[in-house]
């Protein structure tokens, strides 16, 4: 192996989402002489971003004053809020809790917003490199993080170099910012290596699925923000939907469910599709056309689960750290603030040291502290959670005591002795027909002749213990139908199955890495530029 080529920067930022781009822009605003690069695994900026999204504009006002004169495409002021409690056929309007009031906020496509931010960063001479995956961490001689290693390209499925092989380079920088979003694979390695979660609760997650629809003229009411809860979920499963009304007869519709669900046979994708068939939603979508779809894990642990955000040579920002505010159903403003805070810290001190203390003392963490007990309150079921949420909201989180957060992968019940709730789900007819059809609308693309980027650490478990204990839940929780148990034929043994990994379907949501009960699925970056090609998601 030849020595890798090296590029040097003052700060290297991994991931061009709202946190990473805000950090880059702020750094160059404060210290134009710093050399700053952002690398991004998606082929284009914004193509791996999937969010509702309703955002609070405060951080944008701070970061890019005057942005309202030149707003991102699709940016609609919220006009009205509705929250609906759904039963299978009925619905009841709930009062909107204060943290979910959206007056002054905007509905937009976060992917489009990032694509709009990137050229503004480039105008400040940030080097942005889409299509390149940070595959590994580069450590300095004394064990500090000293940058990243870009993944090799042109490697075949057996690991051999193809004609087009290109060795990835190393990017060296005294400070590395991890802004990979929820469950970033480098962030995960670093949290473990430096024990950053030693003093925090385990992180917990949700899976969010989203579709963009072109509906019949007149059905979309631009500026209307709707949320639903309960049906089709059982009372032990946390989640709900969002329906954001856009211009040009478009609707962004999505469904989020806590990955701490218990039923091993539960299929989050199916729950989303069932929700779409509730009379209220179905009415909206019927006769329309699906334009785009996708999925992404969401970090839900909040205050209790925040890891330490600094380590030698690097910082965690945004959802890589876990700054999303679950009760608000918003993470963008927090991610941006956090990215900006990191930039301000670096500009001021020239160092990663001391960031965590500054972070803990910031509005980002204060906001999370206020709502810390709302999400875990729902562990005891919907109504108890609802009540506690109301109390926590009224008291603005000032009551003493902090509920514990549990890990998602351990929440799954074993088949033996577990009875799944009766779901009363119906036959459905709105597209997409199945997960494979949904993947089509994610326009996901991976060169199939490359190493599988979903590594199974103990493959035997899949065909032995997991079959009996959980009936291979990966074949259900994955929204992209990556995992499949197929009959092994040819050797004449009947009933022998093997796990087929359709890695090319992967939409990079990270759910498998999170929910697998044995924690033996490891998501790593595929060749740069692979993955979904979201448009306006």
């Amino acid at each position, binding site marked *: 192996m030849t020595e890798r080529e090296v590029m040097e920067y003052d700060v290297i930022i991994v991931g061009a989402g709202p946190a990473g781009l805000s950090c880059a822009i702020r750094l160059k605003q404060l210290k134009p002489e710093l050399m700053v690069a952002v690398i991004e695994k998606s082929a284009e900026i914004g*193509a791996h971003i999937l969010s509702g999204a309703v955002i609070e504009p405060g951080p944008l006002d701070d970061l890019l004053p005057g942005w309202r004169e030149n707003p991102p*495409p699709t940016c609609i002021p919220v006009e009205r809020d509705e929250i609906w409690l759904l039963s299978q056929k009925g619905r009841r309007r709930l009062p909107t809790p204060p943290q979910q009031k959206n007056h002054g906020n905007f509905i937009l496509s976060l992917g489009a917003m990032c694509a709009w931010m990137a050229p503004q960063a480039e105008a400040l001479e940030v*080097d942005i490199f889409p299509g390149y995956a940070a595959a590994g961490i580069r450590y300095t001689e004394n064990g500090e993080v000293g940058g990243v290693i870009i993944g090799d390209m042109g490697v075949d499925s057996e690991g051999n170099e193809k004609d*087009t092989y290109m060795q990835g380079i190393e990017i060296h920088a005294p400070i590395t910012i991890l802004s990979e979003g929820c469950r970033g694979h480098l962030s995960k390695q670093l949290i473990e290596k430096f024990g950053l979660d030693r003093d925090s609760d385990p992180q917990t997650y949700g899976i969010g699925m989203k579709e963009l629809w072109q509906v019949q003229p007149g059905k979309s009411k631009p500026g209307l923000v709707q949320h639903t809860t309960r049906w089709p979920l059982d009372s032990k499963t946390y989640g709900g939907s969002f329906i954001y009304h856009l211009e040009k007869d478009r609707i962004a519709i999505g469904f989020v469910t806590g990955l701490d669900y218990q039923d091993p046979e539960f299929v989050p994708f199916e729950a989303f599709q069932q929700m779409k068939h509730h009379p209220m939603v179905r009415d909206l979508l019927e006769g329309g056309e699906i334009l785009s779809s996708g999925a992404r894990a969401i970090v839900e642990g909040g205050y209790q689960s925040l890891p330490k955000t600094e380590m030698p040579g690097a910082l965690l920002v945004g959802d890589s750290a876990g700054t999303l505010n679950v009760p608000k159903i918003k993470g963008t403003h927090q991610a941006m603030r956090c990215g900006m805070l990191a930039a301000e810290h670096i500009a001021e001190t020239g160092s990663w040291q001391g960031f965590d203390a500054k972070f803990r003392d910031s509005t980002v963490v204060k906001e999370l502290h206020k709502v810390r007990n709302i999400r875990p309150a729902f562990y005891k079921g919907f109504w108890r959670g609802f009540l506690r949420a109301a109390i926590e909201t009224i008291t603005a989180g000032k009551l003493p005591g902090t509920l514990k957060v549990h890990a998602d992968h351990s929440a799954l019940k074993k088949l033996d002795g577990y009875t799944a709730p009766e779901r009363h789900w119906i036959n459905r007819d709105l597209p997409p027909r199945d997960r494979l059809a949904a993947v089509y609308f994610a*326009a996901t693309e991976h060169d199939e002749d490359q190493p599988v980027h979903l590594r199974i650490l103990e493959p035997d478990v899949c065909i032995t213990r997991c079959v009996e204990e959980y009936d291979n839940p990966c074949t259900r929780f994955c929204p992209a139908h990556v995992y499949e148990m197929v009959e092994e034929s040819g050797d004449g043994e009947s009933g022998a199955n093997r796990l087929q990994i359709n890695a090319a379907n992967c939409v990079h949501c990270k759910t498998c890495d999170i929910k697998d009960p044995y924690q033996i699925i490891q998501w790593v970056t595929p060749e740069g530029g692979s993955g979904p090609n979201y*448009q306006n998601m």
Partner: protein
Amino acid sequence: MKILVGIKRVVDYNVRIRVLSDGSGVDTDGVKMSVNPFDEIALEEALRIKEAGNADEVIVVSAGGDECQQQLRTGLAMGADRAIQIQSSEALQPLSVARAFLKIIEREDPGLVIFGKQAIDDDNSQTGQMLAALWDRPQATFASKMVVNGSSATVTREVDAGLETVEVDLPAVVTVDLRLNEPRFVKLPDIMKAKRKPLDVVALDELGVTVEGNIEVGNHAPPPQREKGVMVEDAAQLITELKNRGLL
């Protein structure tokens, strides 16, 4: 010898094409744009010819608005030495592009001009052939192999009947097919180098080319959906159905 490579900015091949409901075109709102994949193959071939010592300079040329500079930069990052943008605010049809390229040829005097065999947006497959006609030079289209030997090139063409071989004197126009090569990945440091390579902008009217005789493009419609056909019971019925349709 100089090699000119024509590259076109097109909707990326991964984008799901959707026709706008008013029929005015296809949805390009927020979609990814790329170098036409066949043009990447053309550029790769030009770079290989240069690396083999058979050319001194590779120039990428694109016709279009300033947004096509992004694709020219990609070409420079792949290894082209410099770029020329033929600036035009309106979308140009192949004859106008060919006329503009002819003017560039008069300035640059290249030994080879290489294009992709077609652009994946309008699927015309015309520009290279038109340029060869206007230039009164040989053309070798749909190349799956090419060897440059001094003052001529031997090109294997992928035609319906098989593989056809022609020898053309240089200068010549070659258009390339999928199997010719696999384009290289762009190295990260080369993206930075590409920012410093020359990119000349020359307006269409500066070249003395006027757009005329355009094909009028009207309504766009989605392709007709396939419908469910007949079900047969067995192989014998299947054969009868196929025979009825003249397929056996």
